[in-house]
């Protein structure tokens, strides 16, 4: 390397590169390159099993690298490297960990999915790794340009992943929609960067903060326009209302494991960037952007929760639920202090685990061709596969904010961060939206625990509700058609109505679901480690 650049050395000053600060990113990209390179150099493309293995190893290696990063941050403090483009601090480490966890869980889910759908080739895992590296870049970016770089790496890989299931027309349609709107939002975002640069003379986040701290911008139209455009760009990525229009279609159309991955990783990356940009760089002008964020948060919370009520497609419902969650994470941004940032970080991690686990169940529930996501397809699941049903019930309850789960602690923290800055009304709106959201999570749970063709669905449709009044029997004698919770199949005699379809749960997917449920519950009961991690991550936030 030295020999190559020797001639140019006099003119070109290469920045010092602290490789540790971008080690997880390099590992992710390395994994992706490895998968693609091996496939193109060998006679036969890499099998699904092999590419899954590479993905898993890469994800775990990134986690280990993040551990070293954490150690470095804890002993030497935060540092800015690569000519001020990248920052290594607790915040960035937390995002790397979150993304790496999403990668590992998704790789486990995707393996079974790819085999079932017959999607050969290693591209799927390679693109997922690349996309994750983009989110990681966003988490550690210290410059608006680098954020944009990460955003594009993340998004472009996701566009392709969305289209990955070529058997489904919806998949391609969703990808096109995502691509057009995503491209549009990227353009808006770049324009925001340009205007911000025009107003402050820099794209470097600390320099922007410095400039705004030292100068009072008297006519700040350009700055505000830049801020607004940046917020719109981020709003698209995190699917905040009113920039959410793409998300239900894309969530519905994308391959199910990718939907979970997208919900987790795109949110993690985009929220990492928006938190860093607004809380650190634009802290001095917070009175200008906080009202806008309040409005976004209120809309996002309410629209997400209310529109989800009318969804009958589980993936669409989860898309709106994801919008509702984005509203909660915005609360942490609204608070704009270390408490709020820690709360948002915690929420991102908790949500990542919950949503990937939830979509893992959705993935195995789908019929061949990734169809059959109507809520009615879940009817009687508890009877057929009680463990699967209980796992989904736990994950849904956690998303609803049931106590002793990470979902509750996440909501508690974001709400407490806005209450601490006297955002009482916003806090009440958030919690009421959580109550509304509980309704549709439970609707799915009720359907799972209901026998085929009964009334338990509170929104009766397709005539399903009419049979109920007739079946007034002694509750205990309706037999095995209602087996909540923990029943083992052998416990109850089989009845003809529900003998329809048991879905296969591949071993790796089962592992992913088990891990998600375990993390969600264990850190809900023993909360200290994860909460402390999130809080320390922001103490080192500069």
């Amino acid at each position, binding site marked *: 390397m030295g020999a190559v650049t020797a001639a140019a050395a006099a003119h070109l000053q290469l920045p010092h590169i602290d490789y540790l600060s971008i080690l997880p990113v390099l590992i992710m990209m390395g994994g992706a390159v490895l998968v693609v390179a091996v496939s193109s150099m060998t006679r036969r493309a890499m099998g699904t099993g092999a590419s899954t293995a590479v993905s898993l190893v890469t994800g775990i290696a990134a986690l280990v690298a993040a551990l070293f990063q954490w150690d470095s941050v804890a002993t030497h403090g935060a540092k800015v490297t690569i000519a001020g483009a990248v920052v290594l601090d607790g915040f960035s480490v937390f995002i790397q960990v979150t993304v790496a966890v999403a990668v590992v869980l998704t790789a486990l889910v995707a393996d079974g999915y790819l085999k079932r759908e017959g999607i050969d080739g290693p591209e799927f895992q390679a693109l997922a790794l690349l996309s994750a590296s983009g989110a990681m870049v966003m988490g550690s970016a210290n410059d608006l340009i680098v954020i944009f770089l990460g955003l594009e790496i993340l998004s472009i890989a996701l566009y392709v992943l969305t289209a990955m299931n070529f058997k489904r027309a919806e998949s391609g349609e969703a990808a096109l929609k995502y691509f057009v709107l995503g491209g549009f939002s990227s353009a808006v975002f770049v324009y925001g960067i340009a205007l911000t640069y025009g107003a402050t003379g820099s794209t470097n986040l600390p320099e922007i903060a410095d400039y705004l701290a030292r100068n009072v911008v008297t006519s700040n139209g350009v700055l505000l326009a830049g801020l607004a455009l940046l917020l719109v760009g981020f709003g698209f990525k995190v699917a905040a209302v009113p920039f959410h229009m793409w998300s239900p279609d894309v969530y519905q159309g994308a391959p199910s494991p990718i939907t979970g991955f997208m919900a987790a990783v795109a949110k993690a990356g985009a929220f990492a960037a928006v938190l860093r940009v607004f809380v650190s760089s634009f802290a001095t002008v917070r009175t200008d952007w906080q009202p806008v964020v309040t409005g976004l948060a209120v809309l996002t919370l309410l629209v997400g929760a209310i529109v989800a009520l009318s969804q009958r497609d589980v993936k669409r419902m989860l898309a709106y639920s994801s919008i509702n969650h984005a509203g909660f994470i915005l609360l942490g941004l609204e608070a704009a202090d270390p408490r709020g940032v820690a709360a948002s970080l915690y929420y991102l991690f908790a949500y990542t685990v919950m949503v990937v686990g939830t979509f893992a169940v959705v993935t195995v529930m789908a019929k061949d061709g990734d169809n059959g996501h109507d809520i009615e397809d879940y009817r009687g699941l508890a009877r057929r596969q009680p463990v699967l049903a209980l796992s989904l019930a736990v994950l849904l309850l956690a998303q609803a904010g049931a*106590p002793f789960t990470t979902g509750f602690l996440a909501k508690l923290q974001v709400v407490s961060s806005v209450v601490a800055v006297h955002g009482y009304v916003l806090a*009440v709106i958030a*919690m009421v939206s959580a109550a509304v959201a509980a309704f549709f999570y439970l609707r799915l749970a009720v359907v799972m625990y209901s026998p085929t063709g009964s009334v338990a669905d509170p929104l009766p449709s397709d005539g399903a509700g009419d049979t109920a009044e007739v079946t007034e029997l*002694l*509750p*205990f004698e309706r037999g095995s058609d209602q087996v909540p919770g*923990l*029943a083992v199949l052998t416990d109850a005699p089989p009845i003809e109505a529900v003998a329809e379809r048991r879905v296969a749960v591949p071993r790796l997917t089962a592992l992913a679901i088990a891990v998600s449920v375990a993390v969600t519950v264990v850190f809900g009961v023993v*909360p200290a480690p994860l909460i402390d991690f999130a809080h320390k991550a922001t103490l080192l936030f500069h």
Partner: protein
Amino acid sequence: MPASQPFPFLTVLVLLPAAGAAAVALVPSSRTARWVHEALGLAVATATLVLAVVVAVRFQVADAGYQMTSDHTWASSLGIRWFVGIDGISLFLVVMAAVLFPLAMLGARARTDKRSFVAWILLLEAACLGSFVSLDLILFFLFFELTLVPTYFIISGWGFARRGYAAIKFFVYTFAGSAFLLVGILAVAFIHQSQTHVLTFELPALARTHLSGTEGVLLFLAFTAAFAVKAPVFPFHTWSPDAYAEAPTAGAVLLAAVMAKLGTYGIIRFDLNLFPEATHTLAPLLLTLGVVGILYGAVVACVQRDLKRLVAYSSLAHIGFIVLGTFALTTQGLSGGVLQMVNHGLVIAALFLLIGWIYERRRTWQVGDLTGLQKSAPVLAGVFTLVMLASIGLPGLNGFVGEFLILSGTFIVHRWWAVAATIGVVLAALYLLWAYQQVFHGVATGANAKIRDLGWGERLVIAPLVILIVFLGVYPAPVLDRITPSVNRLVAHVEQVTHDRQPSVATGGTGNTAGSAAAAVPAGDPPVQVRPVSVHPTRGAR
């Protein structure tokens, strides 16, 4: 605050049923006998009862403060602690809950999937006991919310025809109420933090927070919203007839007897301690709601053709009495309210068990379909008579003691509310006696003539309740002796803030100042006769 006990009785009391629930859930049902889960569950519930009795025995009678406290870090970054303790107000609720859970488990067994049923009931017991002993507000909230999950599954799993609808309605209503409670808790804690620079959720600390008038009123309303839904207080009761009616017998027993008390207990424990001034200001509002609840519940119960709904509405009326006694803010009224919580729990549990057994025999709750049961089921009729009379408030049975204290405690300070409430007592006699006449008297025809009387198992279940109903009616002194010091302390706390002294007669001789009691004696007015009544009410009755 007393020093921690060497043995953490209360912590074990909460964790024992929780561990039991996990154990029952983990014992596989395929390889074991069918009764193993129920036996294990019953053993755990009985052990919990023994522990609760030990707690009651070790309870220091004269000590008004929190006893047997234990205080541990739970989530230090968030200031949440595992802080549990017990005083005269919560002691008997704990004992009552511990008595009712094994009885409900035994008296209303599930026919299907016993394992899940027992596990959910034990989890519910842990959550209820946890709520009664928590002195950290977030910990309380966690348990308060946790009660929803098992209840939801019990209703939707083993309930009657419209169980899905009822379960969701119950969950969402109470969840929405809790939204305000959570925001309220956080707001109190942060106001406290701004005054003392300590973030804590411990009740004794937060009770010393200085709140402005408006703050206090708003926070009181936020807290009361959650508790009023849970209790339920009119007009927040609309979920309860559905939930009670559609729940399986065990679910109805536990909902009405134990979980409803979480609401009224929450009002006494948190509203009165944290917001004494607002409580005093808004007492007329709550008194009015209590009276409306009494009258409305009674009137609607009068027109019910369905026994279970009749009992559900009678429960609403009785909860109204508890609210009335609480907001009289006199020693007698509050003591009566606390005692009536226990009384109502025992009576309503017995009523729901009895009509559950009637349903098992006749498959109907329609009063019109039942007649002359007395002939073939004399024991059932006899027990029903006694329980019904206790519910009406016949002297010598426990219902009378509580209602009398409440009415006399209210009469002293809010005469007309007490007068209006008395009409409710008359109506209670009307609807219960009328229903009794229909069901048990008359000529038995058809299936009614061949009804099976109570079996030995059922007699064994109902016997403890009957004994307690009679015992508390004849000799309530041991209970009142333990309740009164804590109630006095609470009333003194309210008076200290509001500078509004209750009439000396209302302390009933057990007052905090000897002078006030002495001053009342020479006056020689009729109310003075109330004085001994609060200690040994049956003397007044004879």
